[in-house]
C-alpha cells in the first residue's frame, strides 16, 4: 500500500526513462517508443476502432507523450501516464471529427477466436456496427466504455487514465451502455452481439 503522492513501485525506472527522454536522449526516445507502442496503438484502437488515420494518431500520441514527460514525477505508473495522454489524443480527435459510419472495408479480415468462420464473419460485421454506434455517443462516455468494457481495464484504471473518479467513470460507462442498447434496439445483429459479449444468452 502506498501513501498518496508517493511513487508507485518500479517508479525509479519510469522516472529515469522519463527524465532521459525529457533531456533529449535519443536512445531513451527509442526505448520508450518500443516499450509503449503496443499500448498506445491498442488504446487508440479500442476507443476509435479501425481507422485510416491510425498511423498519424499514434504519432500524435507519442509526440504528446514526449512533450509531457518533463512533468512526470512518478506518482503514477508510466504506462498509466502514456494511456492518459493517448486517451486525450483520442478525445481531441473525436471532438473534431463529425460522426460517420465505419466503412466495412476498414474492418480487417483477421481470424477471430470463434468456433467457425461463419461466426467470425458475423462478428466482423457486428464490430463494424458497434463502432458505428459508438460514433454517435458522447466522446467522454465512449472513451470510458471502450477502455472498461471493450478493453477490459478496471474502473479504477480507467478513472486514472481519464483523470476522473471511479464513481464518475462508472456513470459514464452506464450511460454509454444505455445509449448503445437503445441503438441496438433497431439493430438485431448488434443487439445479439452485445448480449453475447455480456454472456446474457
Amino acid at each position: 500500500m502506498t501513501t498518496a503522492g508517493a511513487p508507485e513501485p518500479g517508479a525509479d525506472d519510469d522516472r529515469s526513462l522519463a527524465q532521459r527522454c525529457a533531456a533529449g536522449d535519443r536512445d531513451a526516445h527509442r526505448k520508450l517508443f518500443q516499450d509503449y507502442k503496443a499500448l498506445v496503438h491498442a488504446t487508440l484502437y479500442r476507443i476509435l476502432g479501425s481507422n485510416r488515420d491510425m498511423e498519424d494518431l499514434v504519432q500524435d500520441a507519442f509526440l504528446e507523450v514526449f512533450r509531457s514527460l518533463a512533468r512526470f514525477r512518478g506518482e503514477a505508473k508510466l504506462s498509466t501516464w502514456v494511456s492518459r495522454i493517448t486517451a486525450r489524443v483520442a478525445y481531441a480527435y473525436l471532438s473534431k471529427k463529425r460522426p460517420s459510419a465505419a466503412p466495412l472495408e476498414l474492418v480487417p479480415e483477421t481470424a477471430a477466436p470463434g468456433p467457425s468462420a461463419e461466426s467470425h464473419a458475423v462478428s466482423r460485421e457486428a464490430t463494424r456496427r458497434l463502432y458505428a454506434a459508438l460514433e454517435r455517443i458522447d466522446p467522454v462516455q465512449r472513451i470510458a466504455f471502450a477502455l472498461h468494457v471493450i478493453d477490459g481495464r478496471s474502473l479504477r484504471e480507467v478513472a486514472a487514465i481519464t483523470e476522473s473518479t471511479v464513481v464518475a467513470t462508472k456513470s459514464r460507462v452506464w450511460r454509454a451502455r444505455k445509449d448503445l442498447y437503445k441503438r441496438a434496439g433497431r439493430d438485431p445483429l448488434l443487439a445479439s452481439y452485445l448480449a453475447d459479449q455480456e454472456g446474457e444468452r
Partner: protein
Amino acid sequence: MTPFRHPPEIEPLSDLGWRRVEKGVLAQLELASAPAPARSRRRRWPWAAGLGLAACAAVALLLSLDLDPGGGALDPLRTSRIETADAPSHVSLGDAELVVEPGSAIVVAEQADQIEVVLERGTVDCRVAPRQQRAPFVVLAGRVRVEVVGTKFAVSRDGDSARVVVHEGVVEVLAGGDRTRVRAGERWPEREVAAAESPTLEMEAELVERPEQRRPRRPQRATRADAEEPEADAPTPQELYDTAARLESSDPAAAVALYRQLASRNGPWAANALFAHGRLELDRGHHDTGRRLLRRYLRRFPDGANAPDARALLADQD
C-alpha cells in the same frame, strides 16, 4: 457492466507502418531539440524569430511529406519490397549490396542518402561500403536496430528479436535501450547456449521452424469408415487457409490446391480463399487465370470484404 467476453481483435500496423511512425516521431523530436537562434543584445528581431519558426514548420512539413511514400517533396521516400522463395535474391543499393536469403522478405526504404532495410522474416546478408559523412545504413528486425557505417554482416530475424553476425568492420546494435558495438568475428547476442546446457532452448529451437519446412497434412478423402468416425484432428478451414498463405512463396502449387479446396465450399473462408487464389495467380504471372478467378469471386461475393480489392486488381489488368 462487465467487460466483453471476446473483444474484437486489434488490427496490427505493418512493420513499415511502425517504421514510418517511429521516424516521424524521432524527426519531430529532433526538430524540437534544435537550438534556437541566439538573440542579439542590441537589437531585437522579432520578425527573424518568426521566420525561424516558419522555417522549422516548413521543414517539419517537408519531413512529414517525405514520410508519405510517393508524396513528392524534394527527396521523396522510395520503398520496395523483396520476397524470396527457394532462391536468394541479390539487391544493389548504390554501394551497398544485399543478399536476401531464401524464404526471406525485406522492405527497403530510401530517402536521399538514407537507406533503411526492414527485415520482415528470414536473413539478409549485407556488404556496405564506408558511409563516411552519409547517414548510417540501418537494418531493422523486430525490436532490434542495426546501424552500419561500413562493413559486411548478416541479420536474421527471430520473432521480435534478431541475431547479428559481423564478418568485416563494425556495427552498432540497439535493442532494449542498450547499444552494443559488434566487431568482425563477433555476433550478437553474444552467448548462444549449447543444447546440452539448456534442453529448453533446444526444444524452443525445434518449435521455431521455418514455415516452408512444414508440409501441410493433405486432407484425406472421406471413406465409409471416416464417415462413421470422423478424423478427430482434421484441419479447420482457417488452418487450411493459414497453411496455404504460408506456402505461397515456397510451394505455390500446394497453396493453390488448398485455396481451390476451400473455395469449393461455402462460407467466408471460401470467399477469402477464392480471392487469395486469384491474387496469387496474378502474382505468379498467370494473368488470364487470375482475372477469371477474381471475376468469379465478384460474382459469388459481390459484397465481400475483398470486393473493392478485386475490382482494383482487375482494373489494373485492363
